[in-house]
């Protein structure tokens, strides 16, 4: 037999080109010394038989301290590459690698082999294959690394003898025995791999008894996009079998198959490795949606302005706007300058509050928190404080006590000036209560803005604030409208007292939200705190003595401390699922989509008034529910009352930063139809 090797290495690789060497004996076809490794190629039994599968062993022995790579090299490195040039009638099957090891390097993780490793290739000869010796061309490239990496390249023409009886004895060639002992075992368990956005779940349907003594489980995936290689994996034993939790990079490439090697470490025995090919389930791709966030700036700006205008008509701001309207009644008795000053003070109140909320939101998002618009209402403490504020404003309107905020008029003069301060405060209040409402057009604008640079965020939210302020700002410029205002009189005191009731309604709704966030005991505490604080404010107003005031302040402070204590210990109460809908999870949605069923998903929050209104006037209507059932549509509800990263991500993938969001996946489709933020029963029924 004659052997030669040649290299196509470019000179810049700068390593030695080894000479061909003759096989030492028996089945060994080639040994080859590259600059940083020695390779040998052996043929099992020394020959191939027509109609049967023979085996080639490709053994790489790197320099001491250097390593080579598995078929998935992990974060970096490279799998060996093999290119075959085969005569007709011969074919090479998929290579078999030994079970890999983890090779950490800095903060990265590679998969490979520290010392010598053998890759086995099945060489399949057709039944009608003939010829005594055939030439098989092989070009191989394998990477050898310590810290620096050196690629090794070589090509050979391998002389493969044909014949059944040649070198039968060499079947026991130790290189093959060793290589086979290092291969992962074939798994006889069924398995499934579910790819979520930030986690992959590997389930092995094993008997619980098979899991006793299991100390560690680690999955080496063959393809990218399943795992963050350097992350620890955790496992749990369940009645279903073994579940391995694998962290995954959000937005990583979607794997095409789930195959890999599972390593199990049992107490008191060497690690076992298994070749598994789990059934792969992948969530709908997020990149389908990548264009959603790309509203042109002018459009987002326009949406924000009109969204802000429409926000004036939404139910949440109504109580505050009625206060503002009430204050405006006195417009006729103010100078044009004063009217305008108040108009601008109101605008400034809205603008500054928007900027404050957005500023905090941006800062938190920069810190990595998955939060969106309305995030402050996910904090029970904020909800509690807002409820207290509403009650205090209501009591002040009702005349229980007087807080100098501007609505009560100055002194006894009923048509009293609102004052710039009062107007400003109303702007702040309007913004605080407006956030739970989403007006049409607002959602895409906000969703867009929050993915943009700082100045775009400021621009879009300023327009939104301006839109909200615009009606009263315009009115403050109109002398004609001011002239139409009725004459002030005793009637205004009654109207003012009447306005306390919508404020109290707002407070009731906030207590309801707080109840959902903290449970019934939490809501009870909040109500008590509300009463104590009201009492302390009242006491403060009644007494002039120092002791009285200290007492009032202490009661108020103690109540607030109690409230923050209750809010921090908050545990969201469990929501009961209705009969026809289930709670949203990526897993659940994926299962339903997998089964080809039509799915309606709605994202809502208890503090989101727009959501609640939509649900009452559209989604929960009998005809809508009947239509959903008739078409066998599965309904999933994503509840964003409390912070939930999974839901925040889904919202973001549809270019949104807040609720509501309505998605309909027609039967067999993974692409959702996105419904508008304000829906009617017919808009749902029409798309079904």
């Amino acid at each position, binding site marked *: 037999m004659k052997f030669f090797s040649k290299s*196509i290495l*470019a000179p*810049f*690789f700068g390593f030695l080109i080894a000479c061909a060497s003759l096989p030492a004996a028996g089945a060994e076809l080639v040994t080859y010394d590259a600059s940083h490794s020695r390779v040998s190629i052996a043929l099992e039994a020394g020959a191939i038989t027509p109609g049967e599968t023979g085996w080639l062993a490709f053994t790489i022995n790197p320099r001491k301290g250097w390593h080579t790579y598995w078929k998935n090299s992990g*974060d*970096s*490195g*490279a*799998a060996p*590459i093999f290119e075959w040039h085969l005569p007709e009638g011969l074919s090479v099957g998929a290579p078999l690698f030994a079970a890999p090891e983890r090779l950490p*390097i*800095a*903060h*990265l993780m*590679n998969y490979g082999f520290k010392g010598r490793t053998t890759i086995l290739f099945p060489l399949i000869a057709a039944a009608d294959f003939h010829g005594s010796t055939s030439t098989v061309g092989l070009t191989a*490239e394998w*990477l050898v*690394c310590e*810290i*620096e*990496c*050196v*690629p090794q*390249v070589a090509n050979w023409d391998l002389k493969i003898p044909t014949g059944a009886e040649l070198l039968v004895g060499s079947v026991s060639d130790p290189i093959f025995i060793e290589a086979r002992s290092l291969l992962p075992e074939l798994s006889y368990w069924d398995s499934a791999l579910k790819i979520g956005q930030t986690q992959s779940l590997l389930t092995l349907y094993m008997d619980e008894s098979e899991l006793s003594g299991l100390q560690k489980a680690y999955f080496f995936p063959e393809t*990218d*996009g399943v795992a963050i290689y350097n992350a620890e994996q955790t496992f749990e034993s369940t009645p279903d079998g073994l579940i391995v939790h694998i962290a995954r*990079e*959000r*937005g*990583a*490439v979607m794997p095409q198959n789930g195959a890999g090697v599972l390593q199990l470490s049992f107490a008191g025995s060497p690690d076992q490795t298994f070749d598994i090919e789990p059934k792969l389930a992948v969530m709908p791709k*997020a*990149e*389908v*949606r*990548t*264009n959603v*966030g*790309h509203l042109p700036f002018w459009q987002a700006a326009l949406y924000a302005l009109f969204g802000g205008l429409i926000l004036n008509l939404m139910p949440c701001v109504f109580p505050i706007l009625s206060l503002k309207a009430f204050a405006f009644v006195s417009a006729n008795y103010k100078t044009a300058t004063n009217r305008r000053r108040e108009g601008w003070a109101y605008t400034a109140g809205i603008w500054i509050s928007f900027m404050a909320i957005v500023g*905090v939101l941006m*800062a*938190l998002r*920069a*810190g*990595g*928190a*998955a*939060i969106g618009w309305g995030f402050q209402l996910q*904090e029970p*403490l*904020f909800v509690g*404080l807002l409820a207290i504020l509403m009650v205090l404003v209501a009591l002040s309107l009702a005349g229980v006590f007087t807080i100098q905020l501007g609505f009560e008029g100055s002194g006894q003069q009923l048509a009293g000036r609102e004052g710039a301060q009062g107007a400003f405060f109303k702007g702040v209040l309007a913004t605080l209560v407006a956030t739970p409402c989403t007006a049409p057009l607002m959602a895409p604008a906000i969703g867009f803005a929050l*993915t*943009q*640079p700082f100045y775009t965020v400021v621009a879009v939210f300023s327009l939104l604030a301006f839109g909200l302020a615009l009606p009263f700002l315009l009115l403050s410029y109109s002398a004609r409208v001011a002239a139409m205002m009725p004459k002030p009189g005793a009637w205004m005191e009654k109207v003012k007292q009447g306005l306390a009731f919508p404020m109290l309604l707002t407070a009731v709704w906030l207590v309801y939200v707080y109840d959902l966030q903290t449970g019934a005991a939490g809501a009870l505490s909040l109500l008590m705190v509300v009463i104590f604080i009201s009492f302390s404010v009242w006491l403060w107003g009644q007494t002039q003595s120092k002791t009285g005031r200290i007492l009032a*302040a202490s009661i*108020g*402070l103690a109540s*607030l401390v109690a409230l923050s204590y209750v809010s921090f210990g908050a545990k969201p109460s469990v929501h009961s699922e209705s009969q026809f809908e289930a709670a949203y999870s990526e897993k659940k949605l994926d299962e339903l989509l997998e089964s080809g069923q039509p799915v309606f998903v709605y994202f809502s929050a208890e503090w989101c008034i727009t959501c609640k209104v939509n649900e009452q006037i559209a989604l929960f209507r009998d005809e809508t529910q009947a239509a959903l059932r008739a078409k066998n549509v599965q309904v999933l509800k994503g509840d964003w009352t409390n912070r939930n990263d999974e839901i925040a991500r889904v919202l973001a*993938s549809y270019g949104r930063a807040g609720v509501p969001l309505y998605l309909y996946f027609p039967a067999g489709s993974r692409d959702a139809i996105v419904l508008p933020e304000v829906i009617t029963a017919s808009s749902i029924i029409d798309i079904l």
Partner: protein
Amino acid sequence: MLKLKLLAILGCIWVSLPAAALMPVIGERAPEFMGVDSKGNPVSLSDFTGKPLILEWTNHRCPYVKKHYKSGNMQRIQRQLTEAGAVWVSVISSAPGKPGQVDGAKADALTASRGSYADKILLDSDGTIGRLYGAKTTPHIFLIDAQSTVRYMGAIDDQPSTRKSSLVGARNYLLQAWQELSEGKTITLASTKPYGCTVKYSDVTD
């Protein structure tokens, strides 16, 4: 005083929120970075707003990088994209004492001798930007559009090999993504597995 107390309480809530690493995600805003280029000038992501940006992690001693530079392949791509209006920034994250670590003068000399069309060479020897972007290999490519949205990340092409012959018929992922981006299409392969030498980060892990 009451107000202060409330602020303090609210402050506590905000501080206690978990902070997670913000790795680049396709379709989302690229992580903001700040660094220094080979000329000693400060460089940050926002400098490039309004222009498409390509970040190329590189190491002149890496054989995979050499394949693309010695063959002229990388320079051709750089020239094509920079002439079409993109900004090309090569990033060197090799730690001091590790292969491929260079100072500004050496980086500029390399740019000249290799005929690179890179607009800037970003020196990141402490690996901050590399870790921020999750750069794993040299080369590792990120395509960021004019609105600072990540559009492509991963390998430069589909040939994880050091042989020049692998360039023939290679499917260049970056050029494909660029083409689709400029035609306003959805990018078919927005994320691929990068190949090449490990970025030579310092061993001090964070």
